[in-house]
């Protein structure tokens, strides 16, 4: 079964990746399955220095999904390079570090640090985290700011640069086009959408951060629509993410134009979720007598 897809110059063994923030640093899954089977692993968002994250409660289940306000808790780029990356290389994983910073200078420093490492397939620039006070979403809702970060990271690294877009940009296609022009090789869409939940007994927010990012099947139709719109606006590959829990979900994104997909919150409820999606796509392609890449953008609109 030909499941290979191309993301710019990068060739992936299959279109199933795991979404940043839902798959740790990858090696947490070593005992569940062979993580080299994945098309790629987008790591937990890495910052220059370690971050402890937001106070609890950080998560709340909602209808067909969940709100989270983790606040980019992570071990920092140095510990990632020292403690996680060597094992990921040993395991043969396709690694896409996800980068978070609150200034262009820090994004450059992150990219330069990772550039000294081997075994990185691409970097994913996070300009769309809704749960941090600085940076994050501020870059992602403004085409000029998003392009500025993209161009700076592209200049600082030899690796392909992907940009993860926010659904909260007024016109996501404007941000997408700006990132493409600035040198992005691919776009990941979408990050979570901010939500708010209130305890009706105490009348207080259910998350300490008040708002949190909504993920899970609840956001999938929004994500598919945005991926479809972005694919019509740009020439670079788009990686679909948002509520994928089954092969059918993933195929929907590919028909809308995504060249690959990322499985996110579904990893939480089932550590094997990404493998289930991969096996489902493989079976689907076999049944249809198609290669995975034949699905990309084939939605019928007549």
């Amino acid at each position: 079964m030909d499941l290979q897809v191309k993301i710019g110059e990068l060739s992936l063994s299959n279109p199933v990746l795991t979404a940043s923030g839902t798959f740790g640093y990858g090696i947490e899954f070593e005992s569940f399955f062979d993580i080299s089977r994945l098309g790629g692993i987008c790591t937990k968002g890495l910052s220059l220095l370690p971050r402890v994250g937001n106070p609890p409660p950080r998560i709340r289940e909602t209808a067909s999904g969940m709100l989270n306000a983790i606040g980019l808790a992570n071990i920092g780029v140095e510990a990632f390079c020292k403690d996680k990356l060597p094992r990921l290389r040993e395991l043969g994983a396709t690694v896409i570090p996800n980068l978070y910073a609150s200034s262009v200078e820090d994004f450059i420093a992150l990219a330069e640090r990772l550039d000294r490492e081997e075994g990185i397939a691409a970097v994913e620039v996070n300009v769309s985290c809704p749960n941090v006070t600085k940076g994050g979403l501020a870059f992602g809702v403004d085409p000029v700011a998003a392009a500025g970060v993209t161009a700076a990271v592209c200049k600082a690294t030899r690796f392909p640069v992907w940009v993860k877009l926010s659904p909260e940009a007024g016109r996501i296609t404007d941000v997408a086009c700006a990132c493409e022009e600035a040198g992005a090789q691919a776009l990941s869409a979408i990050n979570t959408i901010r939500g708010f939940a209130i305890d009706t007994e105490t009348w207080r927010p259910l998350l300490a951060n008040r708002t949190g990012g909504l993920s899970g099947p609840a956001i999938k139709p929004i994500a598919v629509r945005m991926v479809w719109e972005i694919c019509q606006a740009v020439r670079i590959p788009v990686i679909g993410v948002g509520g994928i829990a089954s092969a059918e979900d993933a195929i929907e994104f590919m028909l809308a134009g995504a060249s690959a997909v990322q499985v996110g919150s579904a990893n939480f409820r089932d550590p094997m979720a990404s493998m289930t999606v991969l096996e489902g796509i493989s079976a689907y392609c076999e049944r249809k007598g198609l290669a995975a890449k034949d699905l990309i953008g084939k939605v019928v609109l007549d």
Partner: protein
Amino acid sequence: MEQYDRRPARQVTVPLVRRDSIGASHHVLTFEYDTPLEAQAGQFVMVRGTNWGQSPFLPRPMSLLHGGKRPSILVKVVGEGTRRLANAEPGDLFSVLAPLGRPWSPCSSHRVPILVAGGVGVCPLLFLARTLKQQGIRPVALYGGRSSGDLVLYEELQAESDLRLATEDGSAGVKGKVTALLDEALMEADGRATVYTCGPRAMMASVVAAARKANVPCEVSLETVMACGYGVCLGCAVPRFDGGYVYACSEGACIDGRVIDWKK
């Protein structure tokens, strides 16, 4: 933190074989495994009905009553997920990820284990009491609740321990909080106790304070919301005494009570 033998968690789809209801709101659910679940006291499972569809979206973290061929959990109905668990019938299939989390630390042979349970917090402590019994140790167990109806499985606990009960309305045991029993038990142990506790946060905070005053070790079993149970969602953060957070699923569930900031 001392090392222990942590077996990798397995995700399996298993049938419910028994549901033993204790009143309307408490239920013991027993699943049937093909190969026994090797779990230690204090470890937990993430459990989700295979027929839940997309909502509730997440599995529920549940402390184990015991492992083996037929592992059990104790469920108290507090929301939609636990309501579904409580309504499950034998034969219904569940996705179970286990064993998860850090179990209770072993009790040193020259110390008396004192188990302090509040409500459904009894679950990991009954597992512990049964484990201690196999080692020939009979612990002291203190079990409290608002009224006698909250003291589920107290007879089972009594079989494994020197059990003392407390209820706030006086309907069973002494009238008052379980922590009042703890002062007495700590005095009897005369500085040679190890305290293990699981229950409401305020209760555990008092237990940790009492153990600290008596200068004896005290482990708590943390309960928080969690999405994954195996260290990747980072949703189960609990504030540390020195800033930062511990993750209940991977650094807990069972952890030295002094590590936690009980004021937050």
